[in-house]
């Protein structure tokens, strides 16, 4: 029986936990920040590199390495912007951290600011998350009142300010350069790279963008060391992480798990299996943008590398489960509708492709599909992959290509039914 690993959720799973600053300190909080203040910034970066921590926002990029790219001695301020946009369909893990243990996340953010020399960090929270915004603002107020944030970090360190910045409803602002445009006070359009944010980010200053969960790993890494963190997963897939489980399972929820659990165990042990005695039809394993897995493909290790090998990805670790009665054509329509709604419109393959793909799927739903259209749909999906400014094109192409390949017969069934 698969069990939860309680590192990030250690406090959250404690029913008596008091999430105020007082409660957090009582639970051992802020020890890591004190220790980090005694370290050189480069030491924190090296420790994070050694821990093998990879970004939890979707791309899995090594965090320490990302920090080491920050342009130095530019004479400009350096920024850490935390990505709390959490908009990938299926994903709802960051909000657990912000709502129920904000101080652990904020401690991680403060340590990370020390690592990259940031004196004012911003937390970009999706605008719909008012409860999380309130929770973070209350926690920040406590940190200021206690003299931890402000002119001197913890009363003896460098100046450090943190500000919560609400978004206003746009999935694309989760893409890090769109997020930077958005926080600058503009429409959220992804930028052409290079230059990368580490050279020219927020207001053209060196900037790192990191996900909430990524930063929340820092207190543990500083307290317990790189090796301890690495122990929670196979080579190159370090640490425990949070998964958001949704769809047709008996116990949907956010769970913390080692990075070498089996996907099937996650669905049956944590999720308690499929409701109403139904059979599993398939799983979307890493947010709406990941390639779908059929029921007989789920015996796979749920890690960055194993999922990549299985032709899909871990993405934001959002697992959406669907049973035998699910109409997959309709399901793909929902996914593509989402991306078509959220395309920022800069690149033709994405703006036009998401729209046309949606129209073709609608034809199938209306009984006007045919073999020719199925092929065209597959091709439209391929044309938006690798041809656009940001990865939204790929994010829409992957489900289109995988659904039309793995569930091609269901598209044909819709035709047969209509004929």
């Amino acid at each position, binding site marked *: 029986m698969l069990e939860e690993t309680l590192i990030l959720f250690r406090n959250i799973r404690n029913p008596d936990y008091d999430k105020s600053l007082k409660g957090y300190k009582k639970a051992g909080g802020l020890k890591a920040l004190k220790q980090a203040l005694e370290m050189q910034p480069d030491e924190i970066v090296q420790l994070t590199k050694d821990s093998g921590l990879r970004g939890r926002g979707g791309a899995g990029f090594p965090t320490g390495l990302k920090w080491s790219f920050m342009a130095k001695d530019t004479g400009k301020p350096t920024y850490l912007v935390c990505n709390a946009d959490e908009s990938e369909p299926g994903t709802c893990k960051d909000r657990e951290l912000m709502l129920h243990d904000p101080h652990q996340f904020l401690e991680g953010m403060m340590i990370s600011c020390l690592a990259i020399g940031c004196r004012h960090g911003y937390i970009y929270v999706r605008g719909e998350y008012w409860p999380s915004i309130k929770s973070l603002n209350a926690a920040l107020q406590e940190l200021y009142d206690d003299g931890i944030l402000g002119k001197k970090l913890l009363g003896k360190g460098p100046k450090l300010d943190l500000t919560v910045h609400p*978004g206003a409803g746009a999935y694309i602002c989760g893409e890090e350069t769109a997020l930077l445009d958005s926080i600058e006070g*503009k429409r959220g359009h992804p930028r052409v790279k290079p230059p990368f944010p580490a050279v020219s980010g927020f207001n053209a200053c060196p900037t790192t963008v990191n996900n909430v969960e990524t930063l929340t790993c820092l207190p543990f890494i500083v307290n317990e060391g790189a090796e301890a963190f690495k122990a929670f997963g196979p080579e190159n897939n370090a640490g425990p992480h949070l998964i958001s489980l949704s769809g*047709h399972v008996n116990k949907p929820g956010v769970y913390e798990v080692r990075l070498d659990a089996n996907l099937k165990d996650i669905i049956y042990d944590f999720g308690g299996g499929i409701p109403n005695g139904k059979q599993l039809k398939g799983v979307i394993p890493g947010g709406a943008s990941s390639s779908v897995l059929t029921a007989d493909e789920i015996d796979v290790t749920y890690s960055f590398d194993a999922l990549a090998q299985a032709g899909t990805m871990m993405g934001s670790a959002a697992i*959406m489960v669907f049973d035998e009665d699910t109409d997959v054509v309709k*399901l793909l329509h929902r996914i593509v509708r*989402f991306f078509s709604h959220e395309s920022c419109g800069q690149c033709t393959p994405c703006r036009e492709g998401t729209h046309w793909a949606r129209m073709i799927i609608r034809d199938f739903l209306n009984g006007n599909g045919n073999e020719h259209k199925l092929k065209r749909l597959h091709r439209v999906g391929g044309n938006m992959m690798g041809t656009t400014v940001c990865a939204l094109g790929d994010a829409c192409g992957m489900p289109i290509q995988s659904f039309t390949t793995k569930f091609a017969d269901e598209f044909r069934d819709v035709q047969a039914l209509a004929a």
Partner: protein
Amino acid sequence: MLALDTQKEIAQLLSRYPIKRNALLPILHVVQKGNEGYLTPELLEEVAGICEVSQTHVEGVISFYTMYKLEKPGKFHLQVCTCVPCCLVGGEELLEHVEQQLDTHAGHTADDGVFSVEEVECLGACSYAPAVIINEDYHEQMNPEKLDRLMDELRTQGQAHA
């Protein structure tokens, strides 16, 4: 003229950013909230002045994001999610139910001005689907009966305040 409280909040927000334009999104939220949930051309002009950008810039920004409104919403604004995870467990049926109950369509305000409904994409509450946001609060694992009860309560509240 913006209310004094709103002005104070705006000054506080401006103090958190290196340049005024950076505070545009949060300022628009504050201004919208202070004006019964929607923005008017006059307010946009005022915000443009505060953030030192053109009014066209502000208009471009508000049209990009879904949360800024140019029409007055109901006293209680419902956002019903019909994205993938919600859809798998009854989000569409929930939306249809609300539309029937209020005899309106998504994107509209019901006659009495108490409720307005909007169909939205993922709200980030996927493990607790289906989800509905009413004004600023999340209501999760909803079903038609639960939502009816909640809306009855709100209706009474709304009329009491009217």
